[in-house]
């Protein structure tokens, strides 16, 4: 009798142990899985941002013994503010790029996505075509476009002193040429995301609306737009937060040379090109100054982005 009860207790213990082992293994698996993204987040987001904030208040000087770091106060922010104020043309161009992204690229992307989601004539083919600029490296399209607006342009217009992307061609003309390229290859991701959202709309909702007698335009405005509005808001907000970092593919055309006189710089490109040539000391723009400029951009854009998001979510069309 006692033998039987002892064996039962042993079995229960075994069960208990195996449950504990399972729990522990699950915990280990969970830690293992979440460790990668957490380390990535800590390294590439928290550390980078924290270091940017520290750097914005630092000044580096070179001595015989190496770098000397000193507290710069708000000197770097003063430089950043002056750059921002003096760069009104760049701010204007950055805003024009965003306006084009919002109204032209996103507007057309909505129409194209609707067409593809409704599986109209050639929808599959057009879906691939719209994503082609993302499949073929951007630099390939940029090089081809550059050839067109320089070499081909000069052949077609022999009296031209230069191509359309270099001085003495006016900066505004160069900007328009760049903007056309930016719009031309900018549909891919938007169309892909919007089509996916539109394809997820329940067909019965569309059918019910059709029975109520809605036409194509009404269907698009009253059914599709409200249903995909969260995706739409994401594009608006992401675009807005990137106003001062969108470099409009300028680096592909100008490399580091486009920040000089006579070039149509935007803040995104200026920021990128200057970061490439920056150093801790002894250059026209230092890492510390650029960190301050980045923080200034964040300080300007953060309230705008948060307000826009709140307003869009509150007053935008809803699926109900």
């Amino acid at each position, binding site marked *: 009798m006692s033998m039987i009860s002892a064996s039962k207790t042993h079995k229960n213990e075994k069960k208990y142990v195996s449950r504990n082992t399972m729990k522990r293994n699950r915990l280990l698996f969970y830690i293992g899985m979440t460790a*990668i993204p957490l380390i990535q987040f800590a390294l590439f987001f928290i550390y980078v941002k924290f270091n940017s904030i520290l750097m914005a208040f630092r000044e580096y000087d070179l001595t015989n013994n190496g770098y000397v770091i000193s507290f710069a106060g708000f000197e770097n922010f003063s430089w950043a503010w002056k750059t921002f104020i003096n760069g009104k043309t760049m701010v204007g161009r950055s805003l024009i790029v965003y306006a084009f992204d919002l109204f032209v690229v996103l507007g057309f992307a909505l129409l194209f996505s*609707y067409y593809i989601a409704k599986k*109209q004539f050639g929808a599959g083919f057009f879906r691939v*075509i719209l994503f082609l*600029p993302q499949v073929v490296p951007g630099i*390939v399209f940029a090089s*081809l476009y550059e*050839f067109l607006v320089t070499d081909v342009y000069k*052949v077609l217009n022999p009296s031209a002193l230069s191509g359309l992307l270099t001085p003495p061609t006016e900066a505004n003309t160069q900007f328009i040429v760049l903007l056309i390229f930016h719009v*031309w290859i900018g549909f891919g991701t938007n169309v892909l995301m919007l089509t996916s959202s539109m394809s997820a709309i329940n067909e019965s909702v569309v059918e019910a609306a059709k029975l109520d007698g809605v036409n194509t335009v009404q269907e698009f405005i009253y059914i599709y737009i409200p249903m995909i509005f969260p995706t739409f808001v994401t594009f608006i907000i992401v675009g807005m937060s990137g106003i001062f970092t969108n470099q409009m593919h300028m680096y592909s055309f100008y490399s580091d040379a486009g920040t000089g006189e006579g070039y149509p710089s935007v803040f995104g490109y200026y920021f990128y090109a200057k970061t490439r040539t920056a150093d801790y000391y002894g250059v026209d723009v230092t890492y510390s100054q650029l960190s301050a400029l980045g923080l200034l951009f964040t300080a300007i854009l953060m309230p705008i982005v948060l307000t826009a998001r709140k307003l869009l979510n509150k007053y935008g069309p809803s699926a109900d």
Partner: protein
Amino acid sequence: MKRHSVKRISVINICICVVLGLYALSLFSILGWAVLTSLKSTLDFNDMRNVLGLPDGKLSASEIKLGNYLDIISKFELKTASKNYISSIWGEIVRQKLKVGFFGMLFNSLLYAGVGNLLYTFVSMLMG
């Protein structure tokens, strides 16, 4: 009696189709132009200003036979770095310049695009 369903084609859809068609044409024409240019020699393209036309049979004779592509595959190389190693014969330190050719770059690109995207997707899935 069998009913024939007639699919309504709206004007808006026709307009979008035309715009998309023109967009596709613009992409294909520039890629087609790139292919055409790749079959021309520098003499044909630059000196004779044959920018938009077909390749000249005499000036671009070898290029028409994919000469530019063969050049890219065989001659393309990029100096990447240098490394020191100890010579097995003399025992002295030799500085060797490292180069990467067309296929090396192709491998690097595939590695970056394949493994990099796999990792990116995996991490995004975990976070999502």
